[in-house]
């Protein structure tokens, strides 16, 4: 089936299998657009993308649900040459080690800030609760999000 949606700001048309997930589709066409498919049940959060402005695990989302939506992957947030403020803050705060879970976490933080530009520490913790990280222990990640919010406020 042909499906169309907006991927990182660009309209795309893909020939999709009707029973595949968005994760599988993006992996087939873009290889590295979303990170690892760890759990296939949405529990680990590594493959999270924004659908319109909501973070959703792409491994649980059938392609039939994506038609006409705005999809934002980690590539739509920033890359190594042009990282955005959240990504910069994660690097500066040492919130990344192996990096497996980080794209999903960045997407969730982006979704949180689009919904609520002034989140409390509890809001940040709740947003990060969707993600399993076995390296950093979350403390630096919470600090990185707080730093990113500060930077956004200061317009840096």
């Amino acid at each position: 089936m042909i499906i169309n949606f907006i991927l990182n700001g660009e309209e795309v048309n893909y020939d999709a299998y009707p029973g595949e997930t968005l994760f599988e589709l993006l992996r087939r066409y873009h290889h590295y657009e979303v990170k690892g498919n760890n759990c296939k049940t949405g529990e680990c959060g590594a493959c999270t993308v924004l659908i319109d402005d909501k973070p959703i695990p792409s491994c649980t989302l059938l392609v039939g649900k994506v038609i006409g939506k705005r999809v934002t992957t980690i590539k739509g947030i920033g890359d190594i040459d042009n990282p955005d403020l959240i990504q910069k803050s994660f690097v500066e705060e040492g919130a990344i080690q192996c990096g497996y879970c980080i794209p999903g976490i960045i997407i969730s933080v982006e979704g949180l800030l689009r919904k609520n530009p002034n989140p409390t520490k509890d809001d940040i913790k709740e947003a990060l609760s969707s993600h399993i990280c076995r390296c950093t222990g979350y403390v630096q990640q919470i600090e990185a999000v707080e730093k990113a919010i500060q930077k956004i406020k200061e317009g840096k």
Partner: protein
Amino acid sequence: MLKNVKECFYPESLEECLKLLSDFKENGDIVGGGVDIVWRERKELEYLIYLDKLNLNYIKEDNNYISIGATNTLDELEKINILNDSFRNAIKSVATPILRNVITIGGTIVRGYSWSDILTIFITLEGKVKVFDGEENILSIDEFLQYKKNSKKKFVLTEIDLPKFDDSYHFSYIRFTRTGNDIPLINEGVLVKLNGKKVEKVNIILGGRPGFPVHLDEVEKFLLNKELDENVINLSKEMATKTSEVQDDMRLSMDYRKNLSGVLTKRNLIKIMEEI
């Protein structure tokens, strides 16, 4: 990947949706959020039916009920501010934020897993569902679970209705899990209506037993016309432990569940007492 799926359908009316379900029989199913369908990878599934064109994504209020369209995701329910935030907090305790962004309320109730948080919450709050099987039926959640088990008709769940509660109602929900985001090993919801300081009406619903959620009838009877105090709450705990009908499964023993049912009853009643 659901390898055997051949085609997706987007019906524009309930009648069309029902016809597709009837034509495809066990080879077709409705996609709510899709989490369960992806996870279960049913080999027989060849046709997916999406409800996106049926306009079931709404939350409306009238004087007596809040009506929730079946395709609302759980995060949308967090916007419903009733029962002093207790309802919102109960919804927020389910799964993770990213999963709540995709799981639909209709899909959760139709799947009807016995450990479901949503079933326990909505049975406690006396929710009703609207089911279309050629005609519209309004059923309590308990009745719906029986309908689903016994009726051979194909159906579409279209709406969930919650009563609007006045200030005399108080609600608390607790889930017991291995980790915060896991499915509950046992869960319990308590709804109390007070007349002055005395309990006029009470629902205590125990879920994940591991069978379907049930009332703790003995404890409910005991609490009627009593004031909630430490002594009454401790006696309720003992009674819940003694009378709760729970079972063993590979995740938890019957004894542990029995003890937990008492503990959850006590904690829920304390939360409500502190709120009064």
